[in-house]
């Protein structure tokens, strides 16, 4: 059976896996974005808190993904839970780091002006600082998503959802006639998803970054 036949035969299964893969990454990204931006907002004004947040999240990233999921299984069990937790934690670093850099990069004279015309702390953050820091934050989100696409494949190890199942099945049955096809289908599927997400981010950038600061 060649690769195309394989795709034709298994497209139902592949599409389900791809959908679950995308859905898991997307949901984890939403959670990671909310948490990451929050961490950034809380820590950017203090030198040490900012460094602490960046260091902590980058330490998380150095844990091998297989190990992280392996460590989570005894705590939260198999399936969706360890996948979501691991992906969210991995997704944090680029977002936190870019949020801090972006917020710190807002011209102090603009913050001064915002204060000077009578904006409250919250209004300054929502109306001035976050919109101006949004392009780097969005870049962080994009990088994060690319990363999670790959890492999400490991989730299958913990019986998680996604295209990783395809790859693990292939690796598990090396030597059988469909092994290579399975690995290939899973990997290519992930690449295609990653490209689609990236296109979506370009569109989101177009829609959400003010024309006044678009590069």
């Amino acid at each position: 059976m060649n690769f195309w036949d394989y795709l034709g035969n298994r497209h139902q299964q592949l599409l389900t896996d791809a959908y679950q893969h995308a859905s898991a990454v997307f949901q984890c990204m939403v959670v990671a974005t909310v948490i990451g931006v929050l961490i950034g907002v809380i820590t950017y004004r203090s030198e040490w808190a900012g460094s602490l947040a960046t260091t902590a999240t980058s330490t998380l990233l150095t844990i091998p993904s297989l190990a992280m999921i392996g460590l989570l299984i005894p705590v939260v069990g198999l399936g969706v839970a360890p996948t979501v937790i691991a992906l969210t934690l991995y997704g944090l670093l680029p977002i936190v780091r870019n949020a801090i850099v972006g917020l710190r990069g807002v011209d102090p004279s603009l913050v001064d002006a915002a204060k000077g015309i009578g904006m409250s702390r919250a209004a300054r953050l929502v109306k001035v600082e976050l919109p101006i820091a949004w392009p780097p934050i969005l870049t962080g989100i994009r990088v994060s998503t690319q990363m999670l696409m790959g890492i999400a494949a490991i989730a299958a190890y913990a019986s998680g959802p996604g295209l990783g199942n395809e790859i693990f099945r292939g690796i598990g049955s090396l030597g059988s006639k469909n092994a290579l096809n399975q690995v290939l289908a899973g990997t290519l599927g992930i690449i295609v998803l990653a490209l689609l997400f990236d296109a979506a981010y370009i569109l989101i950038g177009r829609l959400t970054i003010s024309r006044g600061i678009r590069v």
Partner: protein
Amino acid sequence: MSETTATSTDGATAEGAAAPHETTGATIELENLTKRYAGSGDPAVDSVNMEIKAGEIVILVGPSGCGKSTTLKMINRLIEPTSGRIRIGGEDVTDMDPVKLRRKIGYAIQSSGLFPHMTVAQNIALVPKMIGWGKAKTKSRVEEMLDLVGLDPGEFHGRYPRQLSGGQQQRVGVARALAADPPVLLMDEPFGAVDPITRDHLQDELIRLQHELHKTIVFVTHDFDEAIKLGDRIAVLRERSHIAQFDTPEAILTNPADDFVSGFVGAGAALKRLNLTRVRDVEIADFATVTVDDPLQDIFDKLRSSGTNELLLLDKRRRPYKWLRRGDLMRAEGSLARAGTLVHDTVTRDATLRDALEAVLTDNAGRVAVTGRRGEFTGVVDMQTLLNSVHEMLEADRLDAVEHQHELQEQRALLTHHEQEGNGGAAKA
């Protein structure tokens, strides 16, 4: 000092009557205002006392690091004072919610401070929206403000700050500061980052705006020439915001309080004084004129009868055209077409004496024609007139200053007297 104040107040009342809906400025009083940063011995601003009248432009000027910006920022409490009181329009605002306070005070800064992700209209609408104006009212106010600062609303409304030149950005910055019609406007070196020509335009605009609006403006700059041009009164500050002199530009130029002030005024105080007087304030001499339509014989007759060596030839619309000397006429041979020297420079009655002096100095006969609104000839100013006027002016300034000094001393004596009595009373209570 008293004279300037009187005129400005008169102006305010007159125009206020013409446009009664316009808000006029509020008084600002600073009382023993001090800022001490933790960990440094000397305060950054040490006990500033200042009374700013409603509707006047006060310039805080001083060398870098003298605390002039800090003083300004304490007025809208961007920097919280360590001690002292701030009163605006008689109301003590030292302990008021700073966010509410700042919405009542316009604030314009260097490099405009416009938010780059918002359009010009959104930037200007910020404060009106925050204080709860309706959509329609805000919108019409935005158009009105753009118009006021000389930008076409239709064209600039939807632009982003980066699509504007530095001068235009600065105008929008001022429009934003004035959008909610605050009685007080604080300006922190607002024209510091634009080129000299644009800066000059913006200064003229500000003077024009102030003529319409009568806000109380506190303006920080390190440029003394800017201070002279804009200020009703100037506070020259030395380190820690100590007031070296607080007076009208005229008084500071002619009678600097001490070496620090005269050092800051810089060389050429008398020349700078020329900027404060207009051609219409000095004596404009009459001059024998003829027009191009006059027959040549009349011109000869006039020259003979006037007893001078020179005539000014005017064109059909009575604008200065050529200087005609006796010798030129002799060589004219029946036609004026090639006789005489073209008038290459004139000044209007609104020009400063400095402009007039410039023109007189470059003219080879040492005089300049003064023209009216439509360029028509109204008279001549020459070197001698200028010299006399400047002497009179400086003399008058000196007398004013001496008188003022006396007044101040008397006031101070009275104050000390009161204080001693007041303190006595307080101690008893």
